[in-house]
């Protein structure tokens, strides 16, 4: 009888029976290794958590009092003979690929990742392995990102234009990852950055974690509308169309997401500006990352899994589709329709208003 593989895909999450732990499980388990603090990867209810140092404060803020151990990238933990270590995934601050080694066989669970250095998350690091589990949120050749510097140039110009036209500027992006990436790339000579509470809470958590972020001001009830008009507002997707957002009118509203690459998705969002900015790898990024692992088998989860596995097989990879609940299975959440559904795996944050998705 052949040996049981080191990792199995179960209805609770990715399971390592040998080591006695799960990776990003979506149902309560004893021991969870967490790739990153997004809601569809870090669920509440596990007995023990293991994550990267930089995820600590955000996890505590989002999940409350949990039993959490944090480690540095490259630090080795022994779980029942299985060596567990974390490597940068470049997705958001503190995001990690999970590397497992047992009897000379190496498995890597990528979690979500991107290969471009966003200047704030520790850049993605390829890890040699035998088995690689990759996301494929944007695994279609129509998704090809431009360098982020182009996008931020456009964004800063647009902001300046709004200032000239007496419009407030609202930029929408997820509160963990996208918001800080934008914050660090705004041209602050234009004005001040104001934040929605959901974003500011994450900023605070990150600052408590020692992350240096540009200065921001939380928008409170009596924040002056005139001051806001001279600056820029960072808001989470849940704020779109809310009374909270309407009070800044007249404003220009920009939406930051990889889905903005497609005109139909952009029009559904009815944003004034769609900025193609994603924390996931694009088509070429995914292929180069998978290739760099030198893996003998790649398992594909959440995204265009069927298409991508067929393509990878045709160009000589041993690719398999696997089912997980991250960003969910094919098309449910990882297609452009995601923009409307947001995500099934949403959590209500302490703010009570922060519907968080994977992107």
């Amino acid at each position, binding site marked *: 009888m052949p040996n049981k593989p080191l990792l199995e895909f179960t209805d609770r999450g990715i399971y390592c029976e040998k080591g006695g732990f799960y990776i990003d499980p979506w149902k309560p388990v004893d021991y969870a290794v967490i790739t990153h603090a997004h809601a569809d990867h870090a669920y509440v209810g596990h007995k023990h958590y293991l994550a990267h140092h930089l995820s600590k404060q955000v996890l505590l803020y989002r999940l409350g009092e949990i039993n959490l151990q944090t480690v540095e990238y490259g630090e080795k933990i022994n779980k029942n003979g299985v060596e567990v270590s974390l490597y940068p995934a470049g997705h958001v601050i503190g995001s990690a690929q999970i590397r497992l080694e047992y009897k000379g066989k190496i498995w890597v669970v990528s979690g979500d990742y991107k290969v471009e250095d966003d200047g704030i998350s520790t850049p993605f690091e390829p890890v040699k392995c035998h088995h690689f589990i990759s996301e494929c949120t944007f695994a279609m050749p129509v998704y090809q990102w431009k360098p982020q510097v182009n996008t931020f140039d456009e964004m800063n110009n647009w902001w300046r234009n709004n200032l000239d036209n007496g419009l407030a500027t609202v930029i929408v992006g997820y509160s963990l990852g996208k918001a800080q990436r934008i914050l660090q790339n705004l041209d602050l000579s234009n004005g001040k950055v104001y934040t929605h509470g959901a974003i500011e809470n994450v900023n605070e958590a990150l600052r408590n974690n020692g992350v240096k972020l540009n200065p921001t001001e939380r928008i409170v009830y009596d924040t002056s509308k005139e001051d806001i008009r001279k600056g820029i507002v960072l808001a989470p997707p849940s704020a779109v169309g809310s009374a909270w957002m309407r009070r800044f009118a007249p404003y220009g509203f920009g939406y930051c997401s990889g889905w903005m690459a497609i005109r*139909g998705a952009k029009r559904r969002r009815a944003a004034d500006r769609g900025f193609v900015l994603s924390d996931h790898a694009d088509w070429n990024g995914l292929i180069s990352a998978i290739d760099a692992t030198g893996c003998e088998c790649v398992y594909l989860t959440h995204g265009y899994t069927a298409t991508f596995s067929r393509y990878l097989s045709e160009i000589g990879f041993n690719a398999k589709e696997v089912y997980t609940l991250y960003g969910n299975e094919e098309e449910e959440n990882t297609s452009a329709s995601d923009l409307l559904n947001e995500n099934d795996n949403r959590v209500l944050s302490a703010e009570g208003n922060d519907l968080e998705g994977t992107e």
Partner: protein
Amino acid sequence: MRAFAQLFLSLDETNKTNEKVRVLKDYFNSVPDSDKMHMLALFTGRRPKRQINATLLRNWAIEASNIPVWLFEESYQVVGDLAETISLLMQQTSSGSNKTLTEWIAEINALADKNEEQKKLWLMESWGMLDQQECFVFNKIMTGGFRVGVSKNLVIKALADVTGLEAPVLTHRIMGSWMPETYHFKQLVEAKGSDDDVSRPYPFFLAYPIQETSEQQRSVEELQNTLGDPGNWQAEWKWDGIRAQMIKRDGKIFIWSRGEDLATEKFPELHPFLNALPDGTVLDGEILSFRDGIPLPFNVLQTRIGRKNLSKKILQDSPLAVIAYDCLEYNGEDIRPKMQSERRKLLEELHSETPFPEFFRLSPLINFNSWDELAAKRDESRAMIAEGIMLKRKSATYQVGRRRGDWWKWKIDPLSVDAVMIYAQKGHGRRADLYTDYTFAVWDGDKLVPFAKAYSGLTDQEINKVDYFIKRNTIEKFGPVRTVKPELVFEIGFEGINRSTRHKSGVALRFPRILRWRQDKPKEEADSLDTLKALLGE
């Protein structure tokens, strides 16, 4: 091309009317006159002739993007637009093209004399010269699928602001069969227009629906409140044919459809009566099929609209006539500013003189003294082969475009059945990558028979829910079509129903659409084929 691509993008990026007008004005103020005319041509549906067919374009795009055919097809499914798919798949290194729109269109037109190899070379080079947005717009022009998220009215408004001319004047001047190569911006904006084009039609006056949706019926009291004294109104049947404007000038005749297509040759039966009209006459009316003096349902007419060659049999099976209801030009004079009642008198005069009353018919006026009486008449519409009633204020001038106030349409309620969704397909444009196109079935014994496809009628929220259901309840995939577990029931509305040998169900519907999602109904309670056939009224 950069300015034109930017225009397209900017229009896409705002829903605000004022902003759109501002963007259009900026464009008019920044490009050469010849580009303005090319832009106007494209924005009013006057596309350059298609020089490379869709199959070749697709094949060459696949070659250039270096991916397998199946992956190209799947990419297209995700994007929902061929021009955009190609633009996204090209490896863009260019920072944009400096050629003007006029230069690009001239190059496209010059392809007519090139062989396939030369066309391919040109296309590949062109793709390499354009950035993504330009490439998208360029492909839109190449594929002939050029549509833009801005109404002609807004373009006219911007143009009026820029030129200082009145919007109705400009609307009229960009009607007809002009070419951007020969119609110059200077001519378009001359203070006094040159009437050099005898074929030029007038802009159509369009009626507003008096009730926004079929669910919201207007009571007689509401009509009284909105419209006032019935004596100020003229009522006619709302005919279900092809709206057309018929012109006789300088001994020549022209028939224009509502979509501004010159369709003179499609309706040879009408030529004798048009030729017999005095010069300087323009009529507005509805073209319908008739038999023994009685109008036939629209589907009879439909069978001949698409035909290139009109065989004797077709001409015999669906002979046409016009039901005229307005006169826009009389004795060479534009009489649109005259009152409805005066125009009607002139129309009746022309009608009384025609030697061809079989082909030039007059839309009869409906006699009524109260809104109650008219409401009762409206219930007879179906028997009249009409879609409802038209109300025109007797003092109304003939206006430009869809206007509230003087012309109202009061349609009859659609027929409807409850049906089960059985197939689904992804939509396009705004609905790309969402399952929005459905096929519906009714019961025939214990089997479900498909009878209609419908796209519209659900809210965005409902679409998301249905999309979610489809993705979890797919039985089989056939290319882009999914067979869905029969479970969801919808009320399907339609304007008419006719027997059809081309459909499995044996019936063909006119304007099928989703009226509402019947979440309260299990699939067993959907209607049957017998219910549908009973509506045939045979």
